[in-house]
């Protein structure tokens, strides 16, 4: 069945700007975990990616998560993999893939956090800056 659709998807060499908007807290719902899987797959397609944490999404990257007592999978180590993908993209001159990991300043501060609270290095953008950057995207995925 897949074959009949193949001609629709001639994407060889096409490069787009993807933004993944994370607005939801971890564990209370699964969205944070499953969107990460989509982020990782986008690397295989060598697409540009902005991984954005806004509103309760900033809780996803809080340090010190320990899920033993709720018996759920602690997925926060996955953010380290995303950080590595970004570093690979930054350092490899042959790879035309720009990744950015962004936290909205207003959301972070409202929750009493600083960048020291996070498991990964992030760029901090104001809502105005993030809003303008959002306009530059080709595809925005939220979940």
């Amino acid at each position: 069945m897949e074959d009949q659709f193949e001609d629709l998807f001639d994407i060889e060499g096409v490069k787009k700007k993807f933004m993944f908007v994370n607005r939801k807290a971890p564990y209370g719902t699964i969205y944070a975990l499953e969107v990460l899987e989509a982020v990782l797959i986008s690397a295989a397609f060598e697409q540009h990616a902005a991984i954005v944490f806004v509103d309760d999404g900033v809780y996803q990257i809080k340090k010190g998560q320990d899920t033993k007592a709720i018996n759920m999978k602690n997925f926060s180590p996955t953010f380290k993999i995303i950080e590595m993908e970004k570093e690979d993209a930054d350092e490899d001159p042959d790879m035309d893939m720009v990744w950015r990991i962004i936290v909205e300043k207003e959301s972070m501060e409202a929750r009493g956090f600083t960048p020291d609270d996070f498991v990964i290095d992030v760029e901090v953008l104001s809502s105005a800056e993030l809003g303008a950057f959002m306009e530059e995207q080709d595809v925005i995925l939220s979940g």
Partner: protein
Amino acid sequence: MKFGIMVNEGPFTHQASDSAYHFAKAALDKGHQVLRIFFYYDGVNNANKLSQPQADDRNLIKLWGELGKEHNLDLVVCVAAALRRGIKEEILAEGFRISGLGQLIEAGVAADRLVVFGD
């Protein structure tokens, strides 16, 4: 114009799948192309053929299948999300296929617009 559509919720608890369906239908009615409809998160429940809505309610699982047939649409259920939620080939409704999450990214690359419906 070429559209891609992502559906993040099942056919009953949230309106997302209804809205996505009406959006897809309207886009097709206007002569646009819908390259792919990708079902992720609880959206995979849209492909459960055992679902049996009340007689006076709509049956989105069937409606998606019929729309797919009429317009030769690619209705893709994410395999990872589906495995977790117990949506497997044996209960997969007609017109859907199970495939990888890469198909979502591919749709995003190929389409002029990707529109997300969810909760």
